[in-house]
């Protein structure tokens, strides 16, 4: 097995496209090394992208933020400005593995591992993030909710690389939140994850909302029906009940060692409602 650490995107792309699918990107490695140890991944070439500056930066851009794909969880959590702007995304990132894992795990890695239960993805979907991808044919952008195809599968073509995420600008009175359900308080994989991102108008009525659920389908879902339950309301008890019902209805989970179908369906509604309450409370705070 070969190891390369390119310094530029071009070098990285060349390495990836030239390896006829036998190359894997090494960012934090906290998923890849586990798969290599268990034999689920046997790459012939590892392309370490941590030396490429563009992938390690967090910059304010067009009122929003551009976050490099190789930014680690701890770097994002420790970025005061970003945590102020997107508390919900940081909620999700804060729940990934342990402090030690978060010291290495990256935003791009969490997305490209394509686990339906990835903790950072629902909040990115609720935020309406855009994934910036580069390949031999140049750059392209993809909506994050369409980026993952299914468990362990993304829509990247051979030789393509996720470079960064673009978080759009958000108006005042906006708030987002992410909650997940796990048996323990830490160290578990989400049994259910729920992210809500909403904006209130000056009178406190919800004008925009996006809701996303994790670990309840083959990939994280954008759930428009759940968002619709909030838009135009003051996010009162009734609206929250409708949100919970819509969230549960959108689930198509599996039974596995972490949870049963009915459990996920029921708890998805509970988590979505509680996340909406936190998002609303954050939106109502004077920004």
């Amino acid at each position, binding site marked *: *097995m*070969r*190891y390369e650490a390119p310094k530029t995107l071009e070098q990285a792309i060349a390495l990836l496209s030239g390896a006829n699918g036998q190359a894997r990107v*090494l960012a*934090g*490695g*906290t998923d890849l*090394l*586990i798969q*290599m*140890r268990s034999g689920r991944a046997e790459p012939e070439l*590892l392309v*370490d992208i*941590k030396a490429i500056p563009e992938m390690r930066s967090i910059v304010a851009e067009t009122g929003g933020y551009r976050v490099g794909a190789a930014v*680690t969880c*701890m770097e994002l959590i420790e970025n005061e400005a970003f945590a102020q702007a997107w508390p919900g995304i940081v909620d999700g990132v804060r729940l990934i*593995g*342990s*402090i*030690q*894992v978060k*010291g*290495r795990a990256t935003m791009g890695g969490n997305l490209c591992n394509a686990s339906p239960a990835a903790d950072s993805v629902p909040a990115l979907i609720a935020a309406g993030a855009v994934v910036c991808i580069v390949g031999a044919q140049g750059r392209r952008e993809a909506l994050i909710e369409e980026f993952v195809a299914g468990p362990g599968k993304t829509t990247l073509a051979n030789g393509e690389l996720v470079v960064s995420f673009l978080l759009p600008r958000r108006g005042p009175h906006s708030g987002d939140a992410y909650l997940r359900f796990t048996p323990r*308080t*830490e*160290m578990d994989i989400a049994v259910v994850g729920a992210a809500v991102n909403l904006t209130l108008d000056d009178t406190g009525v919800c004008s925009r909302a996006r809701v996303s659920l994790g670990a309840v389908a083959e990939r994280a879902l954008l759930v428009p029906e759940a968002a619709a339950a909030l838009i135009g309301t003051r996010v009162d008890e009734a609206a929250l009940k409708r949100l919970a019902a819509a969230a549960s209805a959108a689930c198509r989970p599996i039974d596995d060692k972490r949870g049963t179908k009915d459990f996920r369906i029921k708890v998805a509604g509970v988590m979505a409602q509680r996340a909406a309450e936190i998002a609303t409370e954050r939106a109502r705070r004077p920004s």
Partner: protein
Amino acid sequence: MARHHVSATVNGDGVEFLCETGQTLLEALRDELRLTGTKEGCGTGDCGACSVMVDGRLVCSCLMLAVEAEGKSIQTIEGMAVGETLHPLQRKFIEHAALQCGICTPGILIAARSLLARNPNPTESEVRYWLAGNLCRCTGYHKIVEAVLDAAREMRGG
């Protein structure tokens, strides 16, 4: 396939070693550099017994390739005491009997020190959540949390 030549700093000393591409930093520390204070409890980042500092960042050395350590500064348990003097955390762990079998102790001490470096006055809950990645099966965590809080007090000159 030729092995990689890696030079790095471990506990302040310059070191060089050879490693395979797939060899983890944990394996290099233990098998190439004979520093066996860092332990393997699971090999999948779930137990924290292999915790070390890399360039000031707390990580699991079982989830990092040895080749990635090129040019990095690594701190392991063997470097925590300074000459004769134990680090306050090491002393408080002994005083509070905050260890029993001791297999998890190196990882927990490294993690606790990195907490106190960024938060000299943590609450009980902050200590517990920071150490959630370090499993201990003997103590039930009670005396570990007490020892970390006591060490923090002493280091603050409290």
